[in-house]
């Protein structure tokens, strides 16, 4: 009888722990879903490299892809070509905004002069916009629909233009 009680107590403690671990082990520990998905995108008004003020709300009515990047980020370099091609192909069907993450505007200017530009490049002093968007590192991309709602976040690089189209269109139907 005593043995049965000990076994029962052991099972009550162990089984939920095993279930908890089994569920937890299925998740990538580095992948934490953004709580901002489905919520209004935090509004911002940043300056571009020429000092012009660019407000997120200026693009209401069409999708916006906000990409946080830096010249010291190797995966961001892989994305550069895909955003250039996507920018040429998509024109004004989508607004591409590149927000600089912890990098010097002089480095960005030199890099863009060599490799060419895509979309609008914005300076984020003190990383305030990155913090408001819950950025963990770069590259990170946020997709905002025409109503100003964040529909998705990617922490992996979009290494080809097809990845960009697929994310915008096949996954979220934002190019129709």
């Amino acid at each position: 009888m005593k043995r049965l009680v000990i076994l029962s107590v052991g099972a009550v403690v162990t089984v939920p722990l095993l279930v908890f671990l089994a569920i937890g082990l299925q998740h990538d520990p580095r992948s934490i879903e953004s709580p901002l998905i489905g919520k209004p995108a935090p509004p911002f008004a940043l300056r571009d490299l020429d000092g012009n003020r660019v407000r997120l709300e200026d693009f209401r009515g069409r999708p916006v892809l906000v990409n946080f990047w830096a010249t010291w980020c190797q995966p961001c370099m892989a994305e550069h070509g895909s955003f250039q091609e996507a920018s040429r192909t998509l024109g004004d069907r989508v607004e591409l905004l590149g927000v600089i993450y912890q990098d010097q505007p002089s480095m960005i200017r030199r890099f863009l002069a060599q490799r060419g530009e895509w979309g609008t490049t914005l300076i984020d002093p003190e990383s305030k916009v990155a913090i408001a968007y819950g950025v963990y590192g770069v590259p990170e991309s946020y997709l905002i629909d025409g109503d100003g709602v964040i529909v998705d976040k990617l922490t992996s690089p979009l290494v080809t233009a097809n990845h960009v189209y697929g994310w915008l269109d096949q996954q979220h139907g934002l190019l129709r």
Partner: protein
Amino acid sequence: MRLTLLAIPLLCATAAAQEPQAPRMPPEDSETGINAMILIGEPKGTPLEGAELDRVAHEVAAVVRCPVCQGLSIADSPVDQAAAMRTEVRELLAAGFTPDQILDYFEPSYGEFIRLEPKPEGFNLLV
């Protein structure tokens, strides 16, 4: 003459009462357009400065998880992102936001994960 002298302080008091209260913080950050009040409302505390600001800023930074080196608080993390978040904590405290409001400011962006000490409620309490 005596009446005039009595009326002056009365007029001053009325003017002060009618003068709109200057906001303790601009509605949005002038460089980024980020507006903390959208998320956490009006500051509920007293603006801090000097040694008190240093002390409370360190206390708050010690319970905010660094998003980059996730085992450390932003007080202990050496990375730029943590430094930027420490600056934000100081600015919010100096504007009169309370430590709880500051945690509530970071949480919508990063989730409860940003708290090094989870809230003692619901499933957290059970664990």
